[in-house]
């Protein structure tokens, strides 16, 4: 027998014809461009100090989610499962839920337990809040952890909905009112650990006391350890979450959040409130909602808001960073102008990236997300004034739809997570990896997207990718740009 290991670039092209028009995709999802809700909830829970997430459902969900997260963060990610069996599916998952809580407490002694439901436990109508009350009643332990429970059936929303749902649940169950303090709440959204570190540095430099929720900058990006930590250090302390109610204001990064998609919820559309909205309604904490600070315009908005809320001027360091960024825009503008990009992934990241590309003269040809808010188009039109007529914006897209779109429209560059690599490879288009997940490279957790320096890094990478592509494909190769 021949050993037909084909090493050529086309190994992923399948020998089946590509249905154009995406008939297959109209009904089935082909290579989903989204993940399921408990994954997002687990990430958010990881950003609370001393928190162990429990996913209430079948063992597979938790194991798959852990594996997916570990491949991105390259860190231990402990997530427990309540391990549904046939009996729990028939008679309810109460017993398993209590056993899971008990076992997690005895193994981890967590400060907080974050419970996320699954499609299965939601479908059979399990009431996790009730189980938690039950557990508390029955337990003879002296101290019990705090409990946060998020309703995260994936048939109602993606990982992003799950993420915001978990953050909102934390705030709803823990935040307290009180005399207004000096501090600011920041809800960064589903950004990288490096982004969280960056935002923290900015606030420190401004000398504004602040609470970031969630903060997985350490828990999902640990240094090496002397000995194994059952629960990694870091995360937003519960005391801080309590104080969210007495903050001077909130800044919520992202403008789509979990808004649109959850409004279709049949069972519980009250869930579509964000943490910051809740704080505004319940405690009068003024909310400033804005896109992720990526790109000069979005960063300016963020820095000006900080300055305006705190009454402090923008530290010189950032004025210089901004200056350098714009200087590099000038140095590089010719190499990017008119290039056509495909931007894909989480909706709020897609909005921010598009707005950034728009300001440097890259045409966003396709902005696509598996999210189903139905609001992506409006947001993109709002934040991409330069080239709106050209943009194709697609909610509810999957990678095969992107693939087919690329075959027809031949873009110059793909910008987003690592999952579209196969498209880039097949069609020989450069790809710049950012966002989540990055499964085929090291350092996904350290990609910086936000702030002037985050923008700078992305800008350099995009431009070098385009220059490199041209250089690699040139007849002679050359030594100067």
């Amino acid at each position: 027998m021949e050993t037909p290991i084909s090493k050529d670039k086309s190994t992923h092209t399948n020998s089946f014809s590509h249905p154009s028009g995406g008939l297959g995709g109209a009904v089935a999802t082909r290579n989903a461009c989204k993940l399921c809700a408990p994954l997002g909830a687990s990430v958010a829970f990881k950003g609370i100090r001393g928190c162990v997430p429990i996913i209430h459902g079948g063992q597979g969900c938790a194991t798959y989610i852990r594996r997916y997260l570990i491949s991105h963060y390259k860190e231990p990610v402990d997530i427990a499962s309540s391990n549904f069996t046939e009996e729990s599916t028939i008679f309810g998952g109460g017993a398993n839920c209590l056993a899971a809580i008990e076992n997690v407490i005895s193994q981890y002694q967590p400060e907080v337990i974050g419970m996320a439901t699954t499609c299965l436990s939601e479908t059979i109508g399990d009431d996790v809040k009730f189980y938690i009350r039950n557990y508390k009643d029955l337990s003879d332990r002296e101290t019990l952890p705090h409990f946060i429970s998020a309703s995260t059936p994936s048939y109602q929303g993606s990982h992003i909905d799950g993420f915001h749902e978990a953050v909102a649940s934390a705030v709803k169950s823990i935040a307290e009112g009180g005399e207004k303090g000096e501090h600011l709440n920041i809800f960064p959204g589903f950004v990288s650990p490096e982004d969280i570190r960056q935002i923290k540095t900015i606030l420190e430099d401004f000398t504004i006391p602040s609470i970031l929720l969630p903060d997985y900058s350490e828990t999902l990006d640990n240094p090496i350890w002397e000995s194994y930590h059952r629960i990694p250090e870091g995360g937003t302390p519960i005391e801080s979450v309590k104080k969210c109610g007495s903050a001077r204001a909130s800044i919520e990064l992202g403008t789509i959040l979990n808004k649109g998609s959850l409004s279709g919820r049949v069972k519980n559309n009250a869930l579509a409130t964000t943490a910051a909205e809740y704080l505004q309604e319940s405690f009068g904490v003024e909310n400033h909602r804005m896109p992720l600070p990526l790109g000069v315009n979005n960063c300016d908005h963020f820095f000006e808001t900080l300055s305006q809320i705190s009454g402090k001027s923008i530290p010189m360091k950032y004025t210089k960073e901004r200056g350098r960024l714009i200087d590099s825009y000038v140095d590089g503008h010719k190499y990017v102008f008119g290039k056509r990009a495909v931007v894909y992934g989480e909706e709020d990241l897609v909005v921010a990236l598009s707005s950034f590309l728009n300001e440097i003269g890259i045409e966003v040809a396709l902005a696509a997300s598996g999210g189903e808010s139905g609001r992506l188009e409006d947001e993109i039109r709002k934040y991409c004034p330069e080239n709106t007529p050209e943009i194709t914006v697609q909610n509810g897209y999957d990678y095969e739809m992107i693939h087919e779109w690329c075959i027809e429209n031949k873009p110059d560059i793909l910008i987003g997570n690592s999952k579209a690599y196969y498209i880039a490879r097949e069609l020989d288009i450069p790809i710049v990896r950012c966002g989540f997940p990055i499964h085929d490279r090291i350092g996904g957790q350290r990609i910086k997207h936000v702030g002037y320096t985050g923008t700078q890094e992305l800008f350099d990478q995009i431009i070098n990718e385009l220059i490199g592509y041209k250089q690699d494909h040139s007849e002679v190769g050359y030594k100067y740009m």
Partner: protein
Amino acid sequence: MNDILKERQNQVVTKGKDDAAIACGKASVAGSVSQRACVFCGSRVVLYPIADALHLIHGPVGCAAYTWDIRGSLSSGPQLHRLSFTTDLKEKEVVFGGEPKLYQALISLIDNYKPKAAFVYATCIVGVIGDDVEAVCRRVTREKGIDVLAIMSEGFNGTKKDGYKLACGALSKLIGTDQTSIVPEHSINILGDFNLAGELWMLAEYYRRMGVNMVACMTGDGRIDDVRKAHKAKLNVVQCSGSMTYLAKDIEDKYGIPFMKVSYFGIEDMSDALYEVARFFKSDEMIQKARELVREELSKLLPELQKYRAQLEGKKAAIYVGGAFKAISLVKALRLLGMKTVVVGSQTGNQDDYNLLKELCDEGTIIVDDSNPNELSEFVKQTGANLFIGGVKERPIAFKLGLGFCDHNHERKEALAGYEGMLNFAKEVHASVCSPVWKFMK
């Protein structure tokens, strides 16, 4: 070890200290961070490498998203298995039923991708919302003229092993449906190889050099038409005790085809796998050829291995993998490199496997069933292991503790089976244990 959950204490034994048999085959304890997956995972893993079939996951998006192209099972032709298809059920279907969506999804995917057969995997909520998946599959089979097989793999309905069984059941339905093909005299099926990093191609080539023909591999580089004629082989050679033994037994019952269990990992086991087959066919010529092959391969391999052994002698390893059979081969292969196994465990081992492990290992070796990160990190510390061999979920545990790590999972890119595989393994162990970066861990 007071860190082990009470319910789990009989799932850990130390050779020389505990006489009691290990408890295994138990469901994972609720709330433990088990490294196991679910029934669906078991089925998906086994059938995944069939490259010309459509694999449609009926359920909400996650189960499909997390299993998209996660294994390095190579195909020499079609790549349809590397696409992740799901009905991506929404609230509407959860309330009103998902059958219409499943039907339409199947029809449109079959029309567009023209697969040779289709597998439909039912995940957790499908049973609960009452979809009759089998009925939809029968209907599409009638309308489209290809086999559409329902795998009722609701995740909660057992363990990964039950998923293997379901997958074997589906294969069993296909086997025997090709009555016309004629296969050579000395023909075998290879069961339980998934063609990770092209391993199957290597093995098939060894057998070919001995004059043995392979009818079907189930399921590495798998093709539906090969599976259909698998009953024409004379012998089933089964690797990996966990997943495919059910099928081998089933074929034996139905067609009287015997099977033998082998491992292709490590020199001894690999060579045995060739000799055993030659002996089965009672052909002196074949035995002769097998001997030549082994001699030739070893004369290339052994001098190369020596270099690595010199540096690895006396180092200690911890092993935690899916199947116990694999663990057994690993213990032997490490020994060949001069290394001692101090911890060994698996997700799905049975009593026989663990007894064998106990026999094989040195005094003081910890043997464990269905472990978790807490325990594993504890064991590794206790025993002072230098190397951890496991799957993707164990890697960060090892790395955080400053320990070398080798992937022995299903997404690896280097072949580890066969003679070439042994050399790759030695290289990888060497790179993991001897890298200078560990000196910063002090």
